[in-house]
């Protein structure tokens, strides 16, 4: 969509639980629109943001739209660098098995399905942030 120019590294930092406020939903909307610009995109989930990726979400009791299935589409938009803060998970009694199994197809490897989520510690997260051109915090 954008003409020429170098690709920039975008990191979307998701810090909040999915339904207590609108930040998670509107962050996802930016990520999906941004995918059309073919930038180098990473997502980080820290603090209560890790709940956004929890599997088996149901919003029946609160009358809000369950937008969690949309995260499964990220792989189709070539968004496959999803970093989850390990400490944030552990502090909430969660493990990788509690999260949705987000995957992408590697076309350079016979379309093998590969996991998109990586667990990172705070030092790795800091290094990741250091590498970015644009950090959007939600």
């Amino acid at each position, binding site marked *: *969509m*954008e003409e020429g*120019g170098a690709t*920039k590294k*975008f990191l979307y930092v998701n810090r909040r639980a999915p339904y207590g406020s*609108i*930040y998670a939903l*509107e962050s996802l*909307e*930016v990520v999906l*629109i*941004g995918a*059309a*610009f073919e*930038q180098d995109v990473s997502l980080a989930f820290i603090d209560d943001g890790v709940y956004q990726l929890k599997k088996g979400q149901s919003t029946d009791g609160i009358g809000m739209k369950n937008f969690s299935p949309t995260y499964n589409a990220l792989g189709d938009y070539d968004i496959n660098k999803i970093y989850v803060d390990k400490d944030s998970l552990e502090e909430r009694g969660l493990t990788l098995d509690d999260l949705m199994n987000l995957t992408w197809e590697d076309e350079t490897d016979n379309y093998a399905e590969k996991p998109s989520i990586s667990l990172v510690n705070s030092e790795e997260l800091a290094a990741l942030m250091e590498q970015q*051109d*644009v*950090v*959007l*915090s*939600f």
Partner: protein
Amino acid sequence: MKLGIMVSEGPYQHQASDSAYNFTKAALEKGHEIFRVFFYHDGVNNATRLTVPPQDDRNVVNRWSELAKQYNLDLVVCIAAAQRRGLLDANEAKRNGKDADNIAEGFRISGLGQLIEAGIQAERLVVFGD
């Protein structure tokens, strides 16, 4: 330096808009270029011309409009965030069958692509939020 600004919180409720305004104004006065100011989340409420703050307080909305006029600033309100929160320009009001519009002078409504473009074009994108 060419800067992009994102404002993620509404006026008066949160200092983010004040900080963004003060930062933007100071940057312009120092001769920096502001590529765009993008209003998202409750930040879209900074663009309603229907606020009536007390006489002895700052007028957050008018302040942005005046800055836009003075420096030919591009103030962009996210359309998706604006529509859910009742922020409409004349075109959107008509298109959605609403009987009023409320966008203040100097602001325009557009898509999220404008935020991504600001990230790409500006040397720094500075986010003011919670």
